[in-house]
Structure formats: structure tokens, C-alpha cells
């Protein structure tokens, strides 16, 4: 009888160990993918994997795996706040005190693009939708800077909208005098200018401090902006806006080739819409 109990216990232990070994990586991955920290910024890489920026770091997340990318070095402990994907899929990070950095996937290294910036107080960056070497940066009272050589040389091009810019976007929506449009999420709403910096005007009458902005590359008139955790959608290039119902407060958004619109939440979740239009967790 004792032998039977021992064998049974031994079997249960083995089964438990086996189950633990099988399930543990999944648990670790789930914890890593959602550690309950608010999502600060979102982007995608060339394979369509999500790049998730939180205070804890930068995570690459696809259907099966999650991996960390170390953040750029900073003596002052400055944290990135803004993330952009270039037209050639390269990744850019920026933040006050950090300046602007480009990640090289091949060498897995960050490269500083700060040599010609007057200081490191960058609060928002944007990458040109179709020109890989053209980048935009907002330097608070320093104004708007543009680089046409991938960040080698930055030139001040404009003072920017009247209110401070907190989120920044370049779009290839048709109709510009030049090569596209700039949307700036300011403390007052969304400001819009052709990318000649001809002048900044209100994009519709959406009011409030915009913390995130993005657009649908496959239908560029569709622009999305986040104000106080609420998601707003414009289907006419920013002329009119409607609020979208989402069960959580939104902090970041991006367009994924696989998932469509993906939002990051205050609780650290990632949500996308299913075929029925319901918001469901990504990769679950």
C-alpha cells in the first residue's frame, strides 16, 4: 500500500514538475508582456512584431515570443517618451534629456543622433512616412527640427504650433503641397500642417491634451488621437472627430500590419479589434 502511495506521489510530483516546466516559460512571457505598467509608446518592426515601450523597458512582442531590447544609455537616467518607425522600418527613440537615438537591428546597438541638436530636450519625434532619411523632432521652446539625412544634421525649420507638442506624426495622406502632412498632438488638441511647415492650424475642434496620435497607412485619412485616455477617430484627415468606446484608459497606439489598430492601456494591456469590432487582448 505504502509503495502504491509512494508511486502515486512520485507520479504526481513528476507530473507537477513536467507541467511546471511546460507552463513556466509561458507564465514568464505573459508577465513580461504585461507587467501592469502603462504603455508609453507603441510601434512595429519589419516583421510586424509589436514594440512596446514601458518604464521597465522596450519589449518586442510577436505571436510566440517576447524579448527585451535594452534602452539607449543615459548618464542622467533620462527615459524615452516617444518612439517612431522610419519608412525603412528603422526604430527611433527620443525623450527629454535623452535626445534621439536610432536602433540598428543587425548590430543590436543604439546610435546617438544628437550631434547637431542644440540640446537633448526632445519631447516628440516623427519619421517621414515614405522618405527613410527624413525625420522630425520637437524641442519644446526650441521649435521644430528636421533632418534629411537620417539624423546626421538637424535644421530648425519652424516654431511649431502655439501650444507644446506631446505627440507627433507624419502622414502620407494625399493633398499636401509637398510630400505629406504633419499632425502634432498638443496640450490643446490636434494641430495640422503640410510638411512644408506652411502653417499650423487646428485639425478640427477636438480639444484637450493629446498624448498619442497615429494614422492608418492603408487609409491615410483615418487619424486617431488620445485625449485623457479616450480614443478619438477622424475619417477625414482631422476635420471631424468621434469618440470610440474602449473599456480601459488608452496611453499609446500604433498600426500593426497583422492586427490593425493596436492600443496600449494604462494597465499595461495591449488591445486590438476582432472581426466583430470588439476590443480583445493582443496575442492571447
Amino acid at each position: 500500500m505504502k509503495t502504491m502511495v509512494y508511486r502515486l506521489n512520485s507520479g504526481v510530483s513528476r507530473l507537477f514538475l513536467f507541467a511546471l516546466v511546460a507552463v513556466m516559460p509561458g507564465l514568464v512571457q505573459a508577465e513580461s508582456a504585461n507587467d501592469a505598467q502603462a504603455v508609453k509608446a507603441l510601434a512595429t518592426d519589419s516583421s510586424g512584431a509589436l514594440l512596446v515601450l514601458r518604464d521597465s523597458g522596450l519589449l518586442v512582442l510577436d505571436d510566440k515570443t517576447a524579448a527585451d531590447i535594452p534602452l539607449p544609455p543615459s548618464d542622467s537616467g533620462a527615459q524615452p517618451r516617444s518612439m517612431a518607425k522610419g519608412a525603412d522600418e528603422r526604430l527611433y527613440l527620443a525623450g527629454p534629456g535623452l535626445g534621439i537615438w536610432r536602433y540598428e537591428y543587425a548590430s543590436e546597438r543604439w546610435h546617438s543622433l544628437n550631434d547637431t541638436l542644440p540640446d537633448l530636450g526632445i519631447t516628440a519625434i516623427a519619421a517621414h512616412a515614405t522618405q527613410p532619411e527624413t525625420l522630425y523632432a520637437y524641442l519644446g521652446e526650441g521649435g521644430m527640427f528636421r533632418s534629411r539625412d537620417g539624423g546626421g544634421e538637424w535644421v530648425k525649420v519652424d516654431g511649431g504650433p502655439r501650444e507644446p507638442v506631446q505627440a507627433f506624426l507624419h502622414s502620407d495622406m494625399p493633398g499636401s503641397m509637398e510630400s505629406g502632412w504633419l499632425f502634432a498632438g498638443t496640450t490643446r488638441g490636434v494641430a495640422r500642417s503640410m510638411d512644408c511647415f506652411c502653417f499650423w492650424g487646428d485639425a478640427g475642434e477636438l480639444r484637450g491634451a493629446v498624448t498619442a496620435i497615429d494614422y492608418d497607412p492603408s487609409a491615410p485619412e483615418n487619424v486617431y488621437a488620445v485625449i485623457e485616455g479616450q480614443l478619438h477617430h477622424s475619417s477625414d484627415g482631422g476635420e471631424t472627430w468621434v469618440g470610440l468606446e474602449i473599456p480601459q484608459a488608452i496611453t499609446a497606439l500604433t498600426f500593426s500590419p497583422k492586427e490593425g489598430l493596436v492600443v496600449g492601456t494604462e494597465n499595461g494591456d495591449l488591445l486590438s479589434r476582432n472581426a466583430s469590432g470588439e476590443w480583445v487582448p493582443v496575442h492571447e
Partner: protein
Amino acid sequence: MNKWFVPLVLLVAPALLMAGGAPPNSDSLPTEVAKGRQIYEQYCAACHGWQGEGAANWNKPDEKGEMPPPPHDETGHTWRHSDAMLFRMIAEGWRHPFNKTDRLAMPAFEDTLTDEEIQWVIEYLRTLWTDDQRRYQQNESQDINQAESPS
């Protein structure tokens, strides 16, 4: 000394004001600029202003829902465009994409003006900008040329 100062100011001030704010006299302009100014005054000034000052409230839609004609002087954004873009705008016209009307608010002049005459107008517009703006516009034109030239 004071009794000479006031008449002197009255005599000199108008000349200083003219030198600072008025457009250059046609007689002193290079030929191309003078021709450009003449064409500008004939075809453009009625909408964009005789001094290139643009329409009032040019950066907000008017009652028809159209963006009014912008200034071409240093207060506008004409200097932000390359020569190629300025030429295209004058030749082909322009409708702001968010205008509520369908018409070309800026009419096309390709059937009215020759290529050379359009270039002369652009030469004249340059005289309405600051030195910094002229440098910016020159760089824009060079960047566009480089981007469009085959490598």
C-alpha cells in the same frame, strides 16, 4: 540744436520708412524682377495683395469654406516652397484639400503665362522675403533638385 532736430526728422523719416517698408522701385530692379513685378501686379495682386500681403485672415477658411489667398511676403509661407513647387502651383493652380468647394481657388496660369513669365514672377516674389528666407528657399530648391535627379 533742438530747433533743427524736428525739421530734420520730418524730412528724413519718410525716406527711411519708404526704404524699409515699400517694395523696390521698378527702375532699380533687374530686368527679370521688374518684368515679374509687372506680371504679378497684372495677374496676382488682386488676390494676393499689391505688396504681397495676402488676404485678411488668410489662415482660416472664409465664409465659402475656402482658404483665402495667402501672403507672398515674409509673413506668408511662399518662401518655404522650392522653385519647382512654386512653378507648379502657378502653372497648374491649387485647391486646398480641405476647402468646401471643388474649384481651383488658385487658378492655373499655364495657358496665360509662358514658362519664362512664371519664372520672372518667382524672381519677383524672392524680393519680398528676408535674407534668411531666401537662403531657406534656395536650400529647399537644391534639396528637391538633388532628390529628383537620378543617382
